[in-house]
């Protein structure tokens, strides 16, 4: 739970002096955020270790490549060709790993946005005057809309909000995408 959310729920607790639906909601949202924060922290540590291992692999591969180039010509003709092929195969795998690691980075960023959304909502629901005002809800929605800046986030935001507007509910199936293909980002030169 972020400091601001904790402050807010503490404040709500003091003034409400007991059970209120708003306080319960804020507490539940704070719990979700804390769980997410802890999971991200643990994952970050694991991925850092993985990246360290990957760095060693890259360095070793480059050293093997450099050593192969230094082999005497007669040995390079026999053993060197095989070694070069192996190094090339490793390089291709590394390129795939570079793309995959970036997905983790993007995931952390997206989860960070979800955490921010949860803490914003926790603060919002503590104030009954805000929760009963359609204008304040619209304002909150606009704040969250600006937060979601990747293609995926925008698509989900749109699907969910349009789904709510049109049908009152959104099915997970409606949000499912083809996850088989690993897609890299577009490049545009100005």
């Amino acid at each position, binding site marked *: 739970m972020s400091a601001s959310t904790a402050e807010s729920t503490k404040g709500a607790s003091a003034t409400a002096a007991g059970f209120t639906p708003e306080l319960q909601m804020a507490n539940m949202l704070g719990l979700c955020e804390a769980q997410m924060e802890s999971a991200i922290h643990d994952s970050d540590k694991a991925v850092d270790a993985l990246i360290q291992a990957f*760095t060693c692999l890259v360095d070793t591969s480059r050293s093997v490549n450099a050593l192969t180039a230094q082999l005497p010509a007669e040995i390079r003709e026999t053993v060197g060709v095989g070694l070069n092929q192996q190094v090339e195969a490793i390089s291709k795998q*590394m*390129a795939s790993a*570079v793309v995959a*690691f970036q*997905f983790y980075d*993007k995931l952390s960023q997206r989860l960070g946005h979800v955490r921010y959304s949860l803490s914003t909502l926790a603060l919002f629901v503590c104030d009954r005057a805000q929760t009963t005002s359609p204008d304040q809800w619209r304002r909150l929605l606009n704040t969250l809309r600006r937060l979601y800046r990747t293609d995926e986030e925008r698509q989900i935001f749109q699907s969910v909000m349009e789904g709510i507007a049109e049908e009152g509910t959104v099915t997970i199936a409606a949000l499912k995408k083809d996850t088989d293909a690993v897609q*890299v980002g*577009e490049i*545009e030169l100005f």
Partner: protein
Amino acid sequence: MSGVILAVDDSASMRQMVRFTLEGAGYKVIQANDGVEALELAKTSGADLVLTDVNMPRMDGLTLVRELRALDSYKYVPMLVLTTESGQDTKMRGKQAGATGWIVKPFNPEQLLATIARVLQ
């Protein structure tokens, strides 16, 4: 390939991925954690190309591009934005700030190298 590339990203893992890719192709890579650090580094160690993220603490990537473009030594240096953001509005702001191009994460190493080679020509 030769040349000095200034890679700017607040994510250490992203900087690593960029470094692997560029050093493997023969470029020298200098790194900064945010726009403020990058601006200082750019002034002291002339880079041939700047590759920057957008959302960073202290100074964002688009402000960095704008600040660098104001310097005589970086008026014509290619500056590529590497970000998860793909909205047309943000791209347009990048173009107006003086960016040379826009690359959406995750990048494909081969495509990134081809793009860099192209803008460095």
